């Protein structure tokens, strides 16, 4: 996770305008992505080729999304944010590792969209292939658009596309998504920088906060069970999503 789905509601709850909150979150997503992607790249889990292929779509989406936000009305953004939060819950209710796609389709083989990973479930190094890259790519444009628009990594949506559409193993999809979100976040941040929405008084403490939080998260992760963490976030994200929809509708008087 980039942390944006928690950060934007938290900053708006503190009275910060949603556009400034989104811009601050977008920059801080670069920080969380840099930390987590560095660790997974070192362990050879992120697939740089698949990441590079999908970045060509997400950066365009990120720029378009951030451009929409810099012109959109704040209450509409709050409402959209809530809806996307509820959709983000979907990946939290699945996550069962099935056998990887053993044979890639023509498109995947043509681009070499495959690799190997160490599977704890199957206890060995397994070869995998991405399938339906021609669908996954354009869908990533939408994920990038939402990321840039809402100042989030849209990691949940990206993982969903990588898992369900492209058939990647959960570990590879999560780590590859972490690698992509930082580059998408830069695309969005560039628009917020030129729009004058990046305020150091909000952004600087947020960056330090998310970096400290991600380090604490890694320490906590080894002590907590994955199921407990998933349940906790499911309830948290659901509650924030409903609150944001209620807030957006309240401001819009719907």
């Amino acid at each position: 996770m980039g942390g944006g789905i928690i950060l934007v509601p938290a900053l708006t709850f503190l009275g910060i305008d949603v556009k400034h909150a989104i811009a601050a979150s977008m920059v801080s997503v670069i920080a969380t992505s840099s930390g987590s992607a560095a660790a997974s790249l070192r362990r050879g889990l992120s697939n740089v080729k698949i990441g590079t292929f999908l970045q060509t779509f997400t950066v365009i989406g990120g720029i378009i999304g951030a451009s929409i936000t810099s012109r959109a009305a704040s209450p509409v953004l709050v409402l959209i944010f809530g809806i996307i939060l509820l959709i983000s819950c979907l990946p939290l209710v699945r996550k069962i590792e099935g056998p990887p796609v053993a044979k890639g389709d023509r498109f995947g083989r043509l681009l070499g969209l495959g690799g190997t990973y160490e599977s704890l479930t199957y206890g060995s190094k397994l070869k995998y292939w991405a399938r339906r890259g021609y669908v996954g790519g354009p869908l990533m444009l939408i994920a990038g658009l939402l990321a840039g628009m809402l100042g989030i990594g849209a990691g949940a949506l990206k993982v969903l596309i990588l898992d369900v559409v492209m058939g990647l193993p959960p570990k590879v999809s999560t780590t590859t998504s972490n690698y992509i979100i930082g580059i998408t976040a830069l695309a969005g941040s560039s628009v917020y920088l030129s729009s004058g929405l990046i305020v150091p008084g909000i952004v600087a403490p947020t960056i330090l906060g998310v970096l400290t939080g991600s380090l604490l998260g890694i320490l906590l992760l080894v002590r907590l069970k994955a199921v407990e963490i998933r349940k906790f976030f499911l309830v948290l994200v659901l509650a924030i999503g409903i609150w944001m929809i209620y807030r957006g509708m309240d401001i819009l008087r719907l």
Partner: protein
Amino acid sequence: MKGMEIEAVLALTLTVGAVASASLITVGLGSYYYSKGNLSLNNPLSAKDLFSLLGSGFWKLDTNRSSPRSLIDLGIAILMLTPYVSVAASTVGFLVQKNLQYAAMGGLVWIILSYSLLVR
């Protein structure tokens, strides 16, 4: 840069960028609070593109004109520079591996980012 080496170079780039940025922001925020007694940094970043922000930050450091605010701005700029450099590094890595298909994709991402960071 061959095989696993691209991943190692990218991991190093991201780590160095995040640590350098966090260090500058920590020093900047600490000295700002020490000198002013608050953290009211309410003015947005003045530069409209990343490279002006970086240029101004490094120039102030080089000419001993840096202030707590300029250190914070430079820290944010370095964080934003990190993924930009990682895209350039992966493109060079693919070129060294003679993987022109991926070098072209990385190059395309780099051009789009450059356009967005410079031309807007």
